[in-house]
């Protein structure tokens, strides 16, 4: 007789169709399940109902400025490396109504009291969970707690996935964030050809999984998964040497390399939009034509936008080179002063989605070479 009692830390084998039922359970419990979906010739994160909405049999090939999807025909649902979108859009929405104001005699304010959605994130990679951990430090500070982020974060269910097939732009191993999850999830999947291995990370995860028809995995199955994860960690072709960060960047603000990058960077802001940790935002008024009603909204912003550093009399960073320097010295430098960690998790999105193919690992190495020369 076998004991099928689950505890936090348990790992079980789950037949793939059972994930469908688990997602249905999440939905019945009031969660909005969001996950990867094939759309617009890419992989986006959006509301999904079950397994049928996942990108089955799709793998990706990402290199600087290039994203390709390849059909493998395999019964695998998480065989790809994520596209341009990150989970950031669910916790820190790209646009969010803060309040509206109407002029009836005098101005009256109306708060946005729409309740925060409860999201269940399906398929969160280790680098992506690390990015959420970084944004927790940014948005949930002792002296300032962002209410929009907090309400969404508190109600979040995280179904994590271990990465087994990194792309060429990935460098999470060198950032210490992946490819294997180490905690912070409710449930964590490792996908094999015929079965998911599922690790329990929370009480809610345990309770949901208990209702499913799982098996206790044999050593061979666990071994296969462990070996696949080992291989993934060692197969990564890119890496970032963080040993001399942040000083390498913050101490060399006058490096020649900044000038050189400034010639290639288009200041298009793609890197900041795809970055899962970039947090800058702007607030704008959307006003009606009579000037009697306005909606004040929060929108993502970027340090590459010319208006970003506008002060009376002009822009404090008129040149692209200084905007790129601001981005990189913040991400890999002063971020640590502000939040105690570097702002990069090694997901590689900024490399894949830069139209000029600028690779931050290469730029850091070039600055290091210049300084040491």
């Amino acid at each position, binding site marked *: 007789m076998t004991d099928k009692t689950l505890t936090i830390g348990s790992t079980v084998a789950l037949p793939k169709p059972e994930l469908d039922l688990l997602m249905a359970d999440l939905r019945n419990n009031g969660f909005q399940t969001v996950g990867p979906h094939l759309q617009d010739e890419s992989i986006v994160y959006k509301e999904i109902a079950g397994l049928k909405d996942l990108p089955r049999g799709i793998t990706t090939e990402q290199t600087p400025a290039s994203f390709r999807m390849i059909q493998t025909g395999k019964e695998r649902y998480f065989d790809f490396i994520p596209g341009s979108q990150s989970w950031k859009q669910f916790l820190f929405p790209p646009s969010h109504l803060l309040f509206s104001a109407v002029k009836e005699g005098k101005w009256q304010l109306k708060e946005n009291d729409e309740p925060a959605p409860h999201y269940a994130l399906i398929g969160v990679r280790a680098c992506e969970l690390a990015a959420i951990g970084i944004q927790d430090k940014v948005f949930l500070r002792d002296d300032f707690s962002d209410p929009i982020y907090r309400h969404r974060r508190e109600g979040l269910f995280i179904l994590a996935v271990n990465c087994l097939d990194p792309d060429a732009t990935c460098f999470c191993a060198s950032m210490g964030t992946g490819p294997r999850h180490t905690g912070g999830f409710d449930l964590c999947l490792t996908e094999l050809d015929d079965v998911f291995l599922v690790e329990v990370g929370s009480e809610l995860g345990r309770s949901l999984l208990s209702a499913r028809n799982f098996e206790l995995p044999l050593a061979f199955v666990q071994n296969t998964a462990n070996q696949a994860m080992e291989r993934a960690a060692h197969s990564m072709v890119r890496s970032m040497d963080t040993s001399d960060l942040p000083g390498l960047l913050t101490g060399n603000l006058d490096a020649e390399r900044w000038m050189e990058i400034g010639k290639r960077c288009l200041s298009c802001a793609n890197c900041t939009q795809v970055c899962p940790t970039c947090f800058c935002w702007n607030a704008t008024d959307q006003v009606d034509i009579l000037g009697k009603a306005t909606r004040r909204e929060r929108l993502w912003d970027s340090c590459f936008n010319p208006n970003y550093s506008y002060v009376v009399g002009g822009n*404090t960073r008129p040149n692209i080179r200084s905007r790129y320097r601001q981005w990189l010295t913040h991400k890999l430098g002063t971020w640590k002063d502000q939040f105690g960690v570097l702002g990069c998790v090694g997901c590689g999105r900024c490399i894949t989605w830069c139209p000029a193919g600028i690779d931050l690992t290469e730029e850091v190495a070039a600055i290091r070479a210049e300084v040491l020369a």
Partner: protein
Amino acid sequence: MTTTLINTAAHSAGYANKLLLPHWAEIVKIIPEAEGVSTFHLKFTDPEVQSRYHFEPGQFNMLYIPGYGEAAISMSSDLETANGLLVHTIRHIGNVTKAANRLKVGDVVGIRGPFGTSWPLDAIEGMDVVIACGGIGLPPLRGAIYQIIRNREKYGKITLLYGARTPADLMYPSEYETWQKAGFDMQVTVDRGDDTWTGRVGVVPMWFYHFRVDPHKTAILTCGPEIMMRFVIYEALARRIPSDHIYISLERNMKCGQGACGHCQQGPYFICKDGPVFPFRALENIFNVEEY
């Protein structure tokens, strides 16, 4: 005397659940100061908000005009004579501040604040104080000036260096006599005089060529165009005034006031939260970096 590099005590902790939600304040009085500059006296429409509100000189509010947005405006009130009014001297030069110029007494604006650090009036007790400001840089120091006058015996020699483009651009000229009577050495200079101007012509940092300072007991408070502050600091350091006795108020693009939106970053600092008032020592490695 102890000096902390960053004054974190003055953060505003409010508005935890209400991102960017302002309180309404009514315009009680508008005083034209100079071409394109006027002073607004404001009062919160909610008396409870008014009684709770407290600020220190050097801090700022975010002023919201529905349909236009927000602008960071320093407090120019004298803490004790404003009778609970918020006093803001505003140069009407941006989108929001130009809209403010079209408002009338009785109109309302939104206010969030106070935000940021304040002038270190305790830390500089016992010292000679040089207040070096230019143009619209005087209003953020006005509250500090009145606090110093009120506690005049706590400070040594006070020098006020103030420069404006023309005599017509000088802020608060009717108050200079009061400041002089309180023993301030008033050194007012303009870039271009007019037919009646008999005072000094030139820029603020030039004052250092003409007077002696005791570097061991002199503190500098400076606010104005960054180029002016750069040379004030240059002259002060050249006279061996230590960098932690030089205090500077920085201006950057500010949207939230709480170190959250990212815009006002300079190096490790969020100017809105860690500043706007800094001891220069905290900025030594970044202040002179081009476009940083």
